[in-house]
């Protein structure tokens, strides 16, 4: 099947800086594709090139198999939901949604019907006559999407549209956006710096850093099988150790940390004895126990003191200082077992080598 959107060797330079450095990807029809990265990584540049507001330095952008490089932005079969939505404040909601249809020269009554349908679909029937500033943040969001969707674009671009909303509404809109995408059955390309937005909604996520794609995959891929240190550090949280490889047994590695601890981890296979390396372990992969005996089937075991309890409901953590003086973040299970734990208590922690990921370099 032809991908809805395909970028080939896309490069964009501004003077001496390279904002987008040889990026290629395909988005299959009907999928929700996210580009996730810190601000300044070049994700907005990619999006503006797809929309036609920037010209790539080299490379190609294809929509449904055909190049759109020579197509001006007002003729491209893609539409965009802008970061601050860019609803037209001088028009009513109905005029906003009908704007693109009027540009196509559609008959008045047909436009009115389509606008009503769109309002129905986004769950806001009958608000067509209202002004933009009479709507709440979430309603504006839906109108901005409807304004694009009535044009039945091949690809809908969304530029961090949830950024301006407050936390609660943002959580709600994540679910709603996903539902809208299913409802309209259109390809969404979504850019964000918020990993939770990307993880919850996307079929595929590209993690972007410094103009390049670090890894493209499903949320599970990125979380469980990060391929680069950047992805391992950017998606979720991790405790890190640096050191040198001492032993290699297939995928299993043993590393001596700079503080002298021996640790077992899973590596990518390209590492050999003596290499500098870095191990990532997520706080939620670490088991907490009162005695060392309870952790006997874990590959890595440490003993330490609780220096701080960061209570945050289900996401509570404890900070544990091990004998080497390093502080680890460990998830505090809310099973009742550790309800009486206090600062200064001695605890045992352990994790499996399979959940400790090792990358080369790290120096």
């Amino acid at each position, binding site marked *: 099947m032809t991908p809805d959107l395909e970028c080939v060797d896309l490069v964009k330079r501004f003077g001496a800086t390279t904002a987008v450095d040889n990026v290629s990807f395909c988005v299959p029809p009907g999928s929700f594709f996210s580009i996730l990265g810190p601000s300044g990584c070049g994700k907005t540049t990619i999006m503006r090139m797809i929309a036609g507001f920037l010209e790539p330095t080299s490379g190609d952008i294809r929509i449904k198999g055909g190049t759109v490089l020579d197509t001006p932005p*007002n003729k491209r079969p893609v539409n965009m939901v802008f970061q601050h939505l860019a609803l*037209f404040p*001088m028009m009513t909601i109905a005029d906003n949604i009908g704007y693109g249809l009027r540009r196509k020269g559609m008959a008045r009554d047909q436009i009115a019907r389509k606008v009503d349908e769109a309002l129905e679909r986004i769950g806001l029937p009958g608000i067509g006559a209202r002004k933009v500033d009479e709507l709440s943040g979430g309603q504006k969001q839906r109108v901005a999407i409807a304004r694009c969707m009535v044009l039945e674009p091949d690809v809908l671009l969304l530029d961090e549209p949830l950024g301006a909303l407050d936390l609660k509404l943002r959580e709600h809109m994540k679910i709603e956006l996903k539902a809208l995408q299913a409802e309209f059955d259109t390809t969404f390309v979504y850019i964000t710096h918020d990993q939770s937005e990307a993880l919850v909604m996307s079929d595929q996520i590209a993690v972007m850093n410094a103009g390049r794609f670090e890894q493209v995959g499903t949320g599970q891929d990125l979380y469980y099988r990060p391929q680069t240190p950047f992805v391992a550090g950017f998606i979720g949280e991790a405790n890190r150790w640096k050191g040198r490889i001492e032993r290699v047994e297939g995928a299993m590695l043993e590393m001596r940390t700079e503080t002298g601890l021996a640790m077992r981890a899973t590596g990518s296979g390209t590492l050999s004895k003596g290499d500098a390396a870095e191990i990532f372990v997520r706080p939620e992969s670490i088991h907490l126990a009162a005695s060392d005996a309870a952790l006997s089937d874990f590959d890595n075991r440490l003993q330490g003191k609780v220096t701080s309890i960061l209570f945050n409901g289900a996401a509570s953590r404890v900070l544990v200082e091990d004998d080497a003086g390093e502080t680890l973040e460990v998830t505090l299970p809310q099973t009742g077992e550790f309800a009486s734990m206090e600062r200064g208590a001695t605890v045992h922690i352990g994790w499996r080598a399979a959940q400790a990921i090792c990358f080369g370099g790290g120096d």
Partner: protein
Amino acid sequence: MRSHARIGFVLLLTPLVLWLGLLIIIPHIDMLLISLRERISFGVYEPSLAQYQKALTEPLYLRTFWRTAVMSVLATAITLVIAFPVAYYIAKMARGRLQQVLFMLCLIPFYVSELVRTFGWMILLRETGLISNLLQWAGLADQPVEMLYNDAAMMVGLVYTSMLFMVVPLVTTLESLDDSVVEAGYDLGGGGISVLREIIIPHAMPGIVSGCIVVFMLSLGNYLTPTMLGGKDSLWFTEMIYNQFIVRSNWELGATFGFMLLVLSSVIVWGMLRLTGRTLQETMG
């Protein structure tokens, strides 16, 4: 504390009331009263509508009145049409330094007196002036051309004089137009014309209204430009006021003319505000 605030309030209110009362309201009422009387003999007056009757029946007065109004509207329209693309360029096309410099360049001519600006146009347009010489040099004319003392020269001067008051409010409102709104217009399939008509102009409306009001007022109340650049038959209403007051010493008729000018300008300003659903406070303040 309360009486304290009371005293402060009164102290602050006093200058405002004195200013508006003694220099704006009472003088205008006095002017209205004077326009409503007729001189019987030396120092003897009686109330009458004779002045208004004279002003509204004498063809010269009426013709000048309407001509001034129509020409002022025309000058406003021309100024708007010339200024809009420039203001748009400054607000949306030029970036950074260039934007600042262009904006400053727009302001500079208006730090000099209107008299100097008018004088400049006289030097350019008169029979022995620069443009006449230029035309002869280029072979487009075989004798000196007089371009001064006609309606076109006057229009050039009026538009020039008011330009700043159109450009500045336009630049200010256009600058507040978010780029992404324009981009959204294009993204949804709009072309240059439709984006201009449906997005840019509606957004710039407040600036257009306040610019037009100020320019219209300035043109209507202008005395120098019509006097210096206009021809013998392009009499301006302000010249008639001046003539009645200073030359003829007929204050009754002069005050009547003044009042007519005031009513005309108020009606047009009110009409423009009404048409666009705005208030004077929003537009001027």
